[in-house]
């Protein structure tokens, strides 16, 4: 792979990760948000694969396949199941309206760009320059987390943050050790399973997944 091919492929994949994070703020239906999340997992796997191929690192390629399986297939399938069983949570109800969230996402992207200035100087590689995109995806995930009130949208927010962290890890360290990535991915899968159980319990107790109802005490 030539240097320019490598840098444009890596840049494209990393930019798609950030784009997917922003699109989750744009779309209203949870079904399409979960599909966007799957695309984000795919783009993340591409980032790992491109770095792996460039550095002839078989371990990183295995990690890429694992990321693909976990974040692009298993996790979205699990969330889709929750959404399908709960008709009330098909649409997100953001506390901040969509145009304002999008503008906030743009501002967060610039914030990430300004904040990572010194970090990108420390990692003067092609991958290192893309770190702002990962941090921006993470910040957008945090934003989704604080402005969405449905349990499922909060899971999506956590996953966005996790994908952002994973992207920064891939770009900054040129590949994390297999065991660390395995731990992180399994951790997230476990979290999704726990949240699924929690969501089922919530629905059974309160009849909805609206987290605002948890502010009142029940017997």
């Amino acid at each position, binding site marked *: 792979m030539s240097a320019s091919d490598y840098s*444009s492929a890596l*840049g*494209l994949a990393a930019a798609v990760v950030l784009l997917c994070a922003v699109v989750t703020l744009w779309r209203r239906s949870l079904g399409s948000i979960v599909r966007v999340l799957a695309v984000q997992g795919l783009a993340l796997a591409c980032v790992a694969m491109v770095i792996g191929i460039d550095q002839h690192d078989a371990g990183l390629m295995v990690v890429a396949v694992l990321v693909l399986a976990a974040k692009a297939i298993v996790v979205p399938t699990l969330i889709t199941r929750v959404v399908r069983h709960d008709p009330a949570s098909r649409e997100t109800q953001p506390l901040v309206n*969509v145009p304002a969230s*999008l503008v906030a996402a743009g501002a967060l992207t610039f914030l990430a760009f300004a904040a990572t200035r010194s970090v990108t100087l420390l990692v003067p590689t092609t991958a290192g320059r893309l770190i702002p995109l990962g941090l921006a995806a993470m910040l957008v995930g945090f934003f989704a987390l604080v402005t969405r009130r449905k349990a499922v949208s909060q899971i999506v927010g956590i996953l966005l943050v996790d994908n952002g962290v994973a992207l920064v890890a891939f770009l900054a360290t040129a590949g994390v050790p297999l065991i660390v990535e395995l731990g992180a991915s399994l951790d997230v899968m476990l979290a999704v399973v726990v949240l699924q159980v929690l969501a089922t319990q919530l629905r059974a107790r309160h009849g909805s997944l609206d987290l605002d109802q948890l502010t009142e005490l029940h017997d």
Partner: protein
Amino acid sequence: MSTVFHLTGVAVASGVQVVAIAAGGPVLVGAMRKVRCRLEGRIGPPILQPLRDIRKLFRKERIRPDQSTWIFPLAPVVLVATVAVAAAITPLVTTEPALGSSSDLFALVYLLLVGSTLLALAGMDAGTAFGGMGSSRAVTIGALAEPALLVTILALSFTAHSSNLPAIVRATLADPGSLATPQRLFALGALLIVIVAESGRLPVDNPATHLELTMIHEAMILEYAGPDLALVTVGEAMRLTLLLGIFVNLVVPWGMSTSTNVVGIAVGLVALAAKVAAVGVALAIFEVCSAKVRLFRLPELLAGAFVLALLGVVSGLVVR
């Protein structure tokens, strides 16, 4: 002597571009209508029907509202004139149009805006409720689309380090790899949304409707009749074609003539017609599949275009 030949060639190329846009515009509109009709299971009017309609309108009597001022007859003329000037200086058939150095994207945007603004004023000029409503909606959409468009231009100008349209196209031809960069892809996505919004196509405005609650552009030009209406129709069709032409040449610049000889211009013309027809048909198919967005949800769509362009700018700063 060679300078004279060159200047003549450049002038001929620009003339060809204006004629192609003026004649091709109504045909493109007719073709898009035909595609939509066919997909909806109807036969639809012939592709050349818009041209016949325009000819019919030009023969009709000139009727203007009693209370209207000089703005009303001026707006259609200015609309057609600004689009024609823009068509002459943008790289459509050749990468070296006349006055190419002044073919800056910012200048083009505001040149086209002169026509839209006058049309919005003319909508209010007659003093009817519909005209005012249509103008207000059209201006709202324009105001929402403008920031997205300006940031898009910024993202597009990364490759050539210039917002000059011929320079961007030439830089893309010299380095096709720049097409696959995220800044270019995001900017083109945003540009497509803005073009759809500015030219009043679905999902922003339904060009086929006369339902009073939903029409935007049709409400604005409701008072026009006869030759004035013909000019407005021609102007709108030309603007759609010009915007799509600029878009396709940013996506696939190949086929454009880099010289101004006869063969080059002919090849460029055929390439332009094929590319614009392809994207027009794709747009028509998309229109059949999509529903009109509620007016109050339009800010979401255009804010999406704005953020897409913004991501393009950020990617342009990071990816090198």
